[in-house]
């Protein structure tokens, strides 16, 4: 149990996908302008990360590894994720239209989001069990959510300030991301010490 908590907390704070592993930077810079879209996008990411892990982990363990096909991992995972996202979209549209309305726009974007492919591959590389892998995916998704929501607040403050001309737009956003990421460095080592 303690191990699961450590995995969850370190995925959220220490190995934050956006701010320390640099995965999913495109949505982080693109969709973080408004709080609504930042939250919508991250909830869709959490959802797809969990689904993708639940689908790819058994494929890797029971299909690819026993048949000595480990080298097909990249191709199989990206196809499974792409098909899964399509499937989720169709199912949502048919059965839960209200949810589809709020998350639907973000779903196709997620197929080529490196955070989702990243989490599925990292789960295998780290040698997690199925439960640990799911917890890690949840933590990673929550970390993404936290970074997006925090950063959308930072960005709304930047909007109103006086910025040198050449720094306007993307450069100042990246500098702000640097400072946000600096604050996350402070979490390093906290979780291990907390649970001894």
């Amino acid at each position, binding site marked *: 149990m303690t191990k699961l908590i450590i995995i969850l907390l370190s995925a959220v704070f220490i190995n934050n996908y956006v701010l320390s592993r*640099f995965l999913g*930077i495109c949505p982080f810079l693109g969709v973080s302008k408004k709080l609504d879209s930042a939250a919508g996008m991250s909830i869709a990411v959490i959802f797809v990360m969990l689904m993708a892990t639940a689908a790819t982990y058994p494929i890797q363990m029971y299909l690819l590894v026993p048949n000595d096909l480990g080298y097909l991992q990249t191709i199989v995972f990206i196809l499974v994720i792409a098909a899964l996202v399509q499937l989720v979209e169709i199912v949502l549209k048919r059965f839960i239209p209200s949810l589809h309305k709020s998350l639907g726009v973000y779903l*196709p974007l997620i197929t080529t989001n490196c955070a989702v492919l990243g989490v599925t591959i990292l789960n295998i590389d780290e040698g997690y069990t199925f439960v640990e892998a799911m917890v890690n995916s949840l933590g990673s998704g929550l970390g993404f959510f936290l970074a997006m929501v925090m950063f959308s607040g930072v960005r709304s403050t930047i909007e109103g300030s006086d910025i040198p001309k050449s720094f306007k737009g993307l450069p100042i956003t990246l500098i702000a991301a640097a400072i946000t990421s600096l604050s996350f460095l402070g979490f390093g080592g906290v979780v291990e010490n907390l649970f001894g």
Partner: protein
Amino acid sequence: MNTLKNFTKGLIKENPVLVLVLGTCPTLATSTSVINALGMGAAATIVLLCSNIVISALRKVIPNTVRIPCYIVLIAGFVTMVQMLVKAFSPALDESLGIYLPLIVVNCIILGRAEMFANKNGVFDSAVDAVGMGAGFTLALFLMATLREIFGNGTFCGIEIPVLADNHISIMTMAPGGFFVFGLLIAAVNKFAKNKPKKKDFGCQGCPQAEVCGKAGCNNAVKEAAEND
């Protein structure tokens, strides 16, 4: 002449990282040392070259409606090949690039070039375009890695630099330094670039997910950068 133009546009005028702002994840993640940056640049260039050649050769065969999945499978195939080659010939590089090597699959530069260039142009032109874009990607990575390694570690390609080695700023090689140096480089490009690329040349119009993406506001960062100049 035209071929030369095709090649050089990727280096400076339409540099995929610094001007088009594509492929930011590997740029930030693998620019901690010059060797890593060059390795990543080379791997991505090889994948880009192979995928551009094959996609442009097959551009009349692949049905338009299923082109994106086809491209992704092709790209994933080449990435797997490069991954195996790196594992076999340079295990140290494989170790340090880690997860970012398989993640070349979702690098938007590669899918972007397939969609913007290779499916409209001939094999030779596409190959030239791929080499130019790959070189531009590598150049941007090299620049970032040089700055980060020199200031963050006091070394260049592993060779110690006398004064800086004793006074290095370790934060530059860590995550915040990546964002910081990238921000400074783009600001410098904004400052010094004289001929801005035409807006239609890059960004969302060429992106396979332009329509959806525009709704989600994904192109805002790129658009903003272009508008503010």
